[in-house]
């Protein structure tokens, strides 16, 4: 039987996400790379007590940040609003401006969600480690700061480093540009950001993509996420 990873609807692609799941969801400073349709489907699906690993905790409620004027993209802020989120692990959890709090910041201050702040590079590397079978690694990032609290500190070449542990998830919700039926994926421009690394670190990796192409249409030299990392692909209508 030929491998076939294309799924017909966003709804079907997220239907088995249980309450309490750990999710990786892409989100950067703007809508580029954010799986807006899968997030909307997860909102409608309603799974609760989610732990979300993401670069941000949702910035769309801050108008104009990486967004074309007039557009109000969907991001994980809608899951926070819908009270589906238990905890966020992120590097950029709030608005750059204290006077314009996001949904997440309000929920956090009301004690409704937990937060683990992780330096962006450490976040990316912990996810990479999760996908690469490395349970833990040492990094200079954050040594001598709050990030060292509760972490093992060890010197290499006379410099302090922190021991950081791998992150994995049950599901990754991601956004690609083009995919084929066996799940090979390419991203476009800076939308690759956390998508490519998150694709490696989840039990079930789901992508929404602009286009499904024939096998062989993607340049084999330029595939960013080989199909073995991908479980489901949904075309954005």
């Amino acid at each position, binding site marked *: 039987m030929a491998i076939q990873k294309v799924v017909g609807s966003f709804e079907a692609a997220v239907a088995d996400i249980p309450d309490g799941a750990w999710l990786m969801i892409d989100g950067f400073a703007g809508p580029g790379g954010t799986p807006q349709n899968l997030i909307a489907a997860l909102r409608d699906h309603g799974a609760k007590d989610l732990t979300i690993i993401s670069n941000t905790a949702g910035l769309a409620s801050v108008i104009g940040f990486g967004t074309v004027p007039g557009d109000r993209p969907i991001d994980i802020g809608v899951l926070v609003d819908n009270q589906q989120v238990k905890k966020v692990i992120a590097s950029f959890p709030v608005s750059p401006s204290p006077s314009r709090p996001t949904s997440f910041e309000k929920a956090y201050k009301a004690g409704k969600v937990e937060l683990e702040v992780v330096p962006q590079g450490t976040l990316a590397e912990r996810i990479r480690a999760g996908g690469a079978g490395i349970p833990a690694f040492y990094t200079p990032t954050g040594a001598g700061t709050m990030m060292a609290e509760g972490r093992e500190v060890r010197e290499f070449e006379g410099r302090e480093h922190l021991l950081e542990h791998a992150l994995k998830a049950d599901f990754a919700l991601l956004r690609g540009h083009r995919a084929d039926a066996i799940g090979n994926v390419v991203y*476009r421009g800076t939308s690759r950001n956390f998508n490519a690394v998150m694709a490696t670190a989840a039990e079930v990796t789901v992508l929404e993509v602009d286009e499904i192409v024939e096998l062989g249409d993607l340049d084999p030299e330029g595939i960013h996420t080989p199909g073995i990392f991908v479980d489901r692909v949904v075309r954005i209508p």
Partner: protein
Amino acid sequence: MTQERLDREIIAMRVARELQDGDVVNLGLGIPTLCSQFVPEGRTVVYHAENGVLNYGPMAEEGEEDADLTNAGGQFLAWVPGMAFFSSAESFAMIRGGHIDVSVLGALQVSERGDLANWMLPQRGIGNVGGAMDLAAGAKRTIVAMEHVDKTGAPKIVRECDFPLTGKGCVSLIVTDIAVLEITLGGLVLKETAPGWTPEEIQAETEPTLVIAPDLQEIVL
């Protein structure tokens, strides 16, 4: 001579003089972003943004904005030849691995030994670390571009940072709206002053004791 504070463009212009031909440079949000406009002629600088692009050029023209091409602050970039895209894991491998020559960052506080605090206002109780800690730890050279004092007039250059740290001993140069200061083993050295400012006046807005450079001069642009 009138004593004025330098505006953000002039601070950025002064920082830009530090960028050498061929340097790989990461510019933070705010004043640092402005530096790219002022790189001296004849020098080619390679820009890195931590969301996964190298060799980017100018911002996108109005109407040409593309959600798939932004810098780390969400500003839209233009498509230019020679760019390379990569994932966040690869992007921070570049940063942490010492492949970025210069990181230009804003700051809330800098200590006389070069400790940097730029990610969290304690009174907010929550903050965005973003890539700042990685840049502070990984870039070969970290330059801070900021106003010399905060909105209340309190010094941002301090003996010890009391805001949460971004990195220890990582800053080597501070460019402010009234001075250029170098962090050295021999102390915090005042190298350049804004037009009309005396070392005493700058000292008054600076918590640690300044070492006056033997070749102290007016800011060179």
